[in-house]
């Protein structure tokens, strides 16, 4: 389990991360989503015991950050942004080296190396130098390296970067099995699709967490859902707009391409009443579905709002 409370990191005058608070439970995948420079890597480095926090606290699997950094590193697996392999060594030698650094020895080490070479599908290339590997193969070695010592807490920075769709799916499926095995996993990514597919919850970050929720709830972040009502028949969709405007549960409505786009707060509760009202008014409904905002839109809105706030703050600072 990862428990973070008010964590912050300053580099001189620059606050790279501030007021970071969240909890990742056992068997949960938590996505950190944010633009470049949002502080994702700095946050992971702090949580992995690599750099010291300037403020706040965190407990990683019960170990206090800053007091038990070595134990935290031993219980943590990290896939860094760049694979960072030793080019002149073979895949097996790379893994064996890191296995030793994680305290594995003898038979235990050999078994772990062989197992993870098989898991990432590199058993046949195990004794080739990684300098000759493709980007995807390197990424697979780096993933194996992060998991070799069976860590309870795992940080994955862009885990499917450089992988073809099939290999990316294999990695995603494997990460899901790690979740099922009860590991706490943080995934840093720019890939919204991947975050949505992989993560139980997503934290959108820009210096701090702007929003944390499940992907489904994030898509409904502004509190309403847009319901598209497909109509046929002689009456134009626009002729129902006055009727819709008078309904208390309708936030807004407009006609578009032979359909009505109706914003409601609670689609599951409001849709039956909406359909009944429209049918009673003579509408011939052939279809109805919810048009949720994409995660991308939510992300861009949140990051854009935060960017505008930062710019305002900078301007106020300059004026003052």
């Amino acid at each position, binding site marked *: 389990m990862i428990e973070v409370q008010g964590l912050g990191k300053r580099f001189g005058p620059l606050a790279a991360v501030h007021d970071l608070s969240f909890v990742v439970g056992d068997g949960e995948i938590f996505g950190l989503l944010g633009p470049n420079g949002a502080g994702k890597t700095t946050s992971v480095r702090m949580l992995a015991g690599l750099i010291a926090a300037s403020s706040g606290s965190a407990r990683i699997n019960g170990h206090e950050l800053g007091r038990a950094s*070595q134990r935290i590193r031993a219980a943590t697996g990290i896939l860094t942004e*760049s694979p*960072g*392999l030793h080019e002149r*060594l073979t895949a097996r030698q790379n893994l064996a*080296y890191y296995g030793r*650094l*994680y305290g594995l020895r003898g038979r235990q080490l050999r078994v772990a190396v062989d197992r993870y070479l098989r898991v990432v599908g590199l058993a046949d290339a195990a004794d080739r130098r990684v300098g000759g590997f493709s980007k995807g193969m390197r990424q697979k070695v780096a993933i194996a390296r992060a998991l070799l010592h069976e860590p309870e807490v795992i940080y994955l920075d862009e885990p499917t970067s450089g992988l073809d769709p099939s290999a990316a799916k294999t990695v995603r499926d494997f990460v899901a099995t790690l979740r099922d095995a009860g590991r706490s996993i943080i995934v840093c990514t720019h890939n919204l699709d991947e975050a949505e597919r992989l993560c139980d919850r997503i934290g959108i970050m820009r210096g701090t967490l702007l929003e944390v929720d499940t992907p489904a709830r994030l898509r409904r972040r502004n509190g309403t859902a847009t319901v598209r009502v497909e109509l046929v028949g002689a009456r134009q969709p626009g002729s129902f707009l006055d009727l819709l405007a008078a309904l208390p549960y309708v936030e807004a409505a407009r006609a578009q391409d032979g359909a009505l786009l109706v914003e409601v707060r609670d689609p599951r509760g409001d849709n039956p009443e909406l359909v009944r009202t429209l049918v009673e008014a003579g509408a011939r409904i052939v279809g109805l579905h919810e048009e949720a905002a994409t995660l991308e839109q939510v992300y861009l809105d949140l990051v854009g709002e935060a960017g505008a706030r930062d710019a305002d703050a900078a301007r106020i600072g300059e004026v003052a």
Partner: protein
Amino acid sequence: MRPGYVWAVLTKEARDLFSNRLLLGAVALPALIFASIPTGIVAFIEVNELAPGQMGQIEQYIGQFPDLPPKLAAQGFIVLNFMAYFLLIPAMVPMAIATQSVIGEKTARSLEPQLATPIEIGELLVGKAIASATPAVVATWAVFLLYGLVNGAIAEPVLTRLIFNDVWRVAMITLVPLICLLSVLLGIIVSSRVSDARTAQQIGGFVVIPVIGVAIAGFFSGQASFTMDQILIGNLVVAALIGLALVIGNWIFDREAILTRLG
């Protein structure tokens, strides 16, 4: 300091080094070149009789070997006088390996995954330092051995005994490893401040200047070889410099600085 972790780094570095033929060549070649110059001169003297005029010019040097005939004394002076260059090998070679090791890690961005393991910085640096210094120490000792045996074979066995004298045996056992260690530490410090191996080696190359200075001073002083006192003073000076380099290295190489500055 946990030996298992140091050993893991050491064996990884050794594998890395032995797979890099160019770097291995850089370890062996300078030592052989330095040794072959005086050996060539000894061979030249052996097959060409020195003219009386020439003997007169080097009389003050060969006078340091009153028990030897003039020709052997001239050869003795040459082999001993050039031996100061044996101190250049431990000054130059480990620097090349250490800078390659650290800069290579920076280029490959492989420091972060290592630092994310339970290894301590000291264990990582000691492993790297031993791995960088050992080939140079071994190369110096091997060429020293070869130098003594080959020159003895070319001239007279007495030349071998001159080369393997007490002063140089002490120098090989103490001063050579100390210079290697200093060279490695300077290599690591310089590597932390630059981004490519060539620049690091150029800057680090300044470390050989004092050693070259000592060698040239010895050459022109007319003194055939170092004395035991000079070797012991050299040990103290180099040990003090190692202490200074360790303080600076410890300051530069904390985990956070490596990650935020070196990548």
